[in-house]
């Protein structure tokens, strides 16, 4: 028993002294990746985040996080840059073109990684519809990267989560056009991920086969962050 106790203590000391990989000891990072594999194996478009009724919408839509939402920005000058997985040159998509896609309204819970939630009525275009229309040759890419126009905030997504039917490029929130605090003119709503992946003020979307960097994953959080 003494040997076992020493062994346990030794294992713990070993674990906590491993070099960090993106802010967390590499064995922990490895298990987070393993957990992702398990989650991906079970993932299905049919598994949907619960939807709520209008009366359940949170009275106070909490604003959290403003990285990438600097003052030096005019939504009127905005267009979305789209980088296909094959083509070298990005092309532009306007808000009007995104509004032409079928409008989807959904009342879902936004789960902050801190542990609180809000229920919000969102409206926008399905990311899968957007991809089919404006980046059809990229459907088979493994990942999607999104970043703010100033590149200060950026997220990486696995393609299955990005194409989930509840994943929206969102331009309306609680019955009004998206405001600046919540990422006007266009933000991501992805209820199968923690709030950190719901990037506001999207400037560029890149389809890629290389796992993209992610702002919070660089700070020690799980890259996948799937719910």
């Amino acid at each position, binding site marked *: 028993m003494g040997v076992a106790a020493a062994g346990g203590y030794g294992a713990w000391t070993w674990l906590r002294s491993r070099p960090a990989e993106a802010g*967390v000891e590499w064995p922990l990072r490895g298990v987070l990746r393993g957990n992702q594999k398990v989650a991906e194996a079970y993932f299905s478009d049919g598994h949907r985040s*619960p939807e709520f009724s209008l009366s359940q919408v949170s009275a106070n839509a909490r604003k959290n996080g403003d990285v990438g939402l600097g003052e030096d920005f005019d939504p009127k000058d905005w267009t979305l840059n789209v980088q296909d997985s094959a083509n070298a040159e990005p092309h532009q998509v306007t808000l009007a073109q995104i509004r032409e896609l079928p409008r989807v309204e959904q009342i879902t819970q936004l*789960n902050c990684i*801190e542990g609180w939630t809000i229920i919000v009525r969102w409206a926008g275009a399905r990311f899968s519809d957007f991809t089919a229309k404006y980046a059809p040759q990229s459907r088979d890419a493994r990942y999607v990267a999104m970043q703010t126009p100033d590149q200060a905030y950026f997220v990486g997504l696995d393609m299955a989560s990005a194409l989930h039917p509840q994943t929206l490029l969102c331009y309306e929130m609680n019955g009004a056009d998206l405001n600046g605090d919540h990422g006007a003119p266009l933000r991501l709503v992805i209820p199968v991920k923690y709030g950190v992946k719901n990037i506001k003020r999207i400037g560029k979307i890149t389809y890629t086969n290389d796992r993209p960097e992610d702002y919070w994953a660089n700070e020690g959080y799980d890259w996948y962050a799937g719910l």
Partner: protein
Amino acid sequence: MPHLEEKHPLAIRWFHWISFPLLSLMIWSGLLIYWANDIYRVGWGDTTLVHFFPDWFYMRLNMPQRLAEGMALHFFFMWLFVANGVLYVLYLAFSGEWRKILPERRSLRDAVQVTLCDLHLRKEAPPQGLYNGAQRIAYTGVIVMAIGSVVTGLAIYKPAQLYWLAGLLGGYEMARWEHFWLMMGFVGFFVIHIAQVIRAGWDNFRSMVAGYSLVKEREVPLESRK
């Protein structure tokens, strides 16, 4: 002549001493996560009797600003926690050891009497074998609580993919609340268990390490094992 008598089989002792640090790690890493949204309390309306937890508690245990680390640890040790728990339950089932800890018909009454006796409100404790009624209820209870922790934990870990599970538990917010109070239940178990171990003395403690208990000739020997 006093002699040594086997009290706890080796497997039980291993499970015991693996469970203790694993559960402690799950509670500690869970608290690192909980800190980021520490909303639970005992109170009503605007009146709060106890807030979980006061600032001095987090400061004392160096808990603030460690959410990412807490999550990485929690989602690492969850595998060992579950594996150990599954093996323990399988061992209990196949070895017959479950007979020693599963509450019996008289366990509840015994537990009340044992508790009254421990509180010095009653002179004599009811006769018992290896474990008394209160112990049987507690040792089976923690297994049920551990299963509850895994189920509520899964619901708050994947509330979208496991929407049906979160739904059964009353939604994400309810499942998080349930997960928290199960943790508090484990803390309560720790407090009482450790106090009782101290009260029971060295021979009892050593038996969970070495497996043997010192039995004096005059005493009634421990319930014979099958």
